């Protein structure tokens, strides 16, 4: 969405056309955008002054992103205050002590966000350095599945496929990966890669189904993937009660433990939770970047995503691209499962997918479908999640508020014109609304 710009054409429609005559329905703001889009860019280096610099900063995309995050956190803060019991008590005495009420509000707000920060980045009360940076590693641990699944979604978005089936693909990846993990007795150097590949294949299979249905019958992948989520969820419930997966002597859904050779080693030593899947995720980021931006398949995917007609005309087999995109997307989501399955303990469980598949949608949107951006977005969301649990424990603020903040961040980032309007920022020169909201 950022690296290629198909919308460049629209502003060359007809430069001489008077926007107000051509489109009387356009608002003044939109007309201005139109005029801006059709006037030559001010790229004369001699004309730059400090005024222009300020203008450029104010109209830049990153400022909008930062303000989106800030604004979402403010709304989240309001919700935290609104649902806090102490605030309710203080509100009852508002008429007697309005100052006290606002003090309690601020206190609640600050405490919640401080614990969010100390739970995700730095723990100031830690005894030693290791304890202090522990939250940071826990952030990376929580970010890992989101990186994988976010990449999966991002690949789908490149071909304008909306894969909401991340949940189901994670479940199927977990099942296959775990099956390999406890069935075979092989050296670690062989078994672990096999489990990882198993995760990919399991997810890829679950992505293949909507892919082939889309290619052969034009079935809408959004609905098919949603339905397959429920199918996978019920399938894992059944599988975990099945003797193949169930631990001997159990009648509750507990899976067999993983073989010792199928477990990811720890990255930063045994004291921290981050395991090697984080490194695999970083490799996946690089591979996906190469795939999307440098490979032939990636080129075709982007072409199909931008305009399937043009792609078809250029000789690209659109349907087979849809199929391959869904397979890769599903496979990446399947990999997300490995980071929580290939660990010591029970391995696969019913809620192995947690909400990664859905969070991945927002992650990929926030990362603008760009692999590196997606990785950063996943780390941000991992931090919010890691901190959210600490916040819940320390301030009794339910972690659901994190979900709300995430949705709001992405929503505002998706609509730069709205954020600009809220904060009275100028429009960037030479960009139109459609270009920005893509």
């Amino acid at each position, binding site marked *: 969405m950022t690296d290629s710009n*198909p*919308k460049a*054409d*629209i502003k060359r*429609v007809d430069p001489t056309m008077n926007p107000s005559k051509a489109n009387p*329905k*356009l608002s003044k703001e939109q007309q201005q955008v139109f005029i801006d889009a059709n006037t030559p860019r001010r790229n004369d280096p001699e004309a730059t002054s400090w005024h222009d610099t300020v203008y450029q900063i104010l109209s830049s995309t990153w400022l909008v992103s930062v303000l989106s995050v800030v604004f979402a956190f403010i709304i989240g803060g309001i*919700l935290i205050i609104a*649902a*806090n019991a102490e605030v309710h008590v203080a509100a009852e005495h508002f008429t007697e002590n309005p100052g006290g009420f606002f003090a309690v509000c601020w206190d609640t707000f600050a405490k919640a966000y401080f614990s969010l920060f100390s739970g995700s980045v730095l723990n100031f009360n830690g005894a030693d350095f290791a304890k202090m940076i522990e939250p940071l590693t826990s952030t990376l641990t929580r970010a890992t599945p989101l990186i994988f699944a976010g990449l999966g979604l991002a690949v789908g978005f490149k071909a*304008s496929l*909306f894969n*909401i089936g991340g949940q189901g693909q994670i479940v199927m990846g977990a099942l296959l990966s775990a099956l390999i993990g406890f069935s075979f007795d092989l050296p670690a150097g062989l078994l672990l890669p096999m489990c990882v590949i198993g995760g990919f294949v399991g997810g890829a299979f679950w992505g293949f189904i909507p892919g082939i*249905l889309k290619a*052969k*019958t*034009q*079935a*809408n992948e*959004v*609905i*098919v993937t*949603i*339905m*397959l989520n*429920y*199918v996978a969820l*019920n*399938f894992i*419930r*059944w599988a975990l009660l099945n003797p193949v997966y169930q631990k001997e002597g159990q009648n509750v859904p507990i899976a067999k433990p993983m073989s010792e050779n199928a477990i990811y080693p720890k990255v930063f030593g045994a004291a921290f939770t981050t395991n090697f899947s984080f490194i695999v995720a970083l490799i996946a980021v690089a591979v996906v970047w190469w795939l999307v931006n440098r490979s032939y398949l990636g080129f075709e995917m982007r072409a199909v*995503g*931008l*305009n*399937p*007609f*043009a792609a078809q005309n250029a000789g690209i087999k659109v349907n087979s691209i*849809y199929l391959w995109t869904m397979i890769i997307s599903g496979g990446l989501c399947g990999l997300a499962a490995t980071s929580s399955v290939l660990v010591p303990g029970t391995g696969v469980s019913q809620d192995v997918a947690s909400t990664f598949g*859905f969070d991945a*949608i*927002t992650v990929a*949107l926030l990362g603008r479908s760009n692999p590196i951006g997606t990785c950063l977005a996943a780390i941000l969301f991992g931090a919010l999640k890691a901190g959210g649990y600490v916040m819940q424990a320390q301030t009794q603020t*339910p972690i*659901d*508020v994190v*979900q*709300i903040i*995430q*949705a*709001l961040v*992405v*929503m505002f980032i*998706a*609509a730069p*014109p*709205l954020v600009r309007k809220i904060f009275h920022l100028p429009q960037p020169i030479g960009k139109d*609304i*459609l270009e920005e*909201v*893509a």
Partner: protein
Amino acid sequence: MKNENEKMKMNNNSADLSATSANSVEVASERATPELKQDSIVATSNVSQSSKTPKDNYAGDIVVPINWKTSIIFTVLLGLACLFVLFSTDAQARFSFIGLNETALIQIPNVNLPAQITIMVLTVAMAIVTALSYYKAIQRQKMNIAFSILFGFSWVFAFLIWQIQGKETDFYVTGLLSMTMALSAPLIFGAMCGMVCEHVGVINIAIEGQLLFGAFSAVLSGSVIKIATGNDGLALLGGVIMAPISGVLLGLLLAVFSVKYFVNQMIVGVLINVLATGLTAYFYSTIMTENLALNSAMKLPVVRIPILADIPIIGPVLFDQSVLIYIMYILVIGLQYMLFHSRWGLRMRACGEHPKAADTLGVNVNRTRFRNVLLGSAIAGLGGAYFTIAQGLVFGEGMSSGKGFIALAAMIMGGWKPLNALAVACLFGFTDAVQILLTTFGASIPSQFLLMMPYIVTVFAIAGVIGKVTPPAQEGRPYVG
């Protein structure tokens, strides 16, 4: 004369040129909106070649490839049905028609069907439909949807008999039907919401969130009013009014972001779902658990329509129902009429099919879209109330459980027509009811597979039986002017 001809040619040329430039403008604007759905793409290509009727395609040497899709799916299902026959015994399948309301004038005796023979008869019926589907495929014609429905129902019925054969307890048909009603009502509301939004050109996948938020705010506002006034009637009224309003609030987000600021509608929809899930879960685990009175159960009155409710079997299911169900009847019939026979419906569809044409004729496209998205969202919000106050239940976290998405599927499979969508929604509700009843009945297949059934049916239906449906041409695309 020659000169004139040349002039004509020139004129033609210039006309051609302007046409091509217009085309290139079209192409440019096409490229400007990334397509998320292939359906819409194909639809637009149809529009551009609208002069060709399907029949013209058969002319000459060009022959449309045979579409085996439906036939293949029917064959697979038929094979499964044959397995039912093999695994069935001559035991009896006991059906009871005793309703929940014992006072009905006409009582129907219990029916005991011999399992194997009945399944065989049904399988033969299915085989006939399958053969017909092959015939139609070879003829390159589309099969009548009624046959698909017939096939589906026979299959489900055969499956049902296979599962309940030889069981000592009766299978309550009336219970099944009233459960179908209860389970399909939210789907129908959701489908109607999607209908209003999509005919006007806005894809609303936030139905799920709107249902959930409607369910939540119906209970919350009802409870608040109950605490404040102590009047149950007033509380229920408040709940019924606040549910659509809360739907509108979420719809407002969709409208502002996607209609005013042209953000991708799918993205906004997903985010609204996340937001609604988060908001309801957040307030559920804070204020509602702190103060349980804020989540109190209350039930809308059940109204019995005197004579109609005495019709055997379907009478009590259809006409001895919550007030909300009657609102739903009016809604579906009203929408079916209004969409296709009123000025409002025409303008709406124009905005969804060809906004530029609508704009040219003086319809304010984005305003029409904005308002109708709000209207649709209100319908979904009201449907949410069905989860809670219509059934007398308290709010539970994530209680819409994907119904909004199934509603969307129902709408698509219903071909964007209210009555068809109603039928499909009822089919989904029926599958769900069968699954629930069979689970309690002690069926021979694992309950998890029964739980999958409604979703698998949806996938099959979307992929195969229904075939290609045509969405509103400009659905999902912002109208910039």
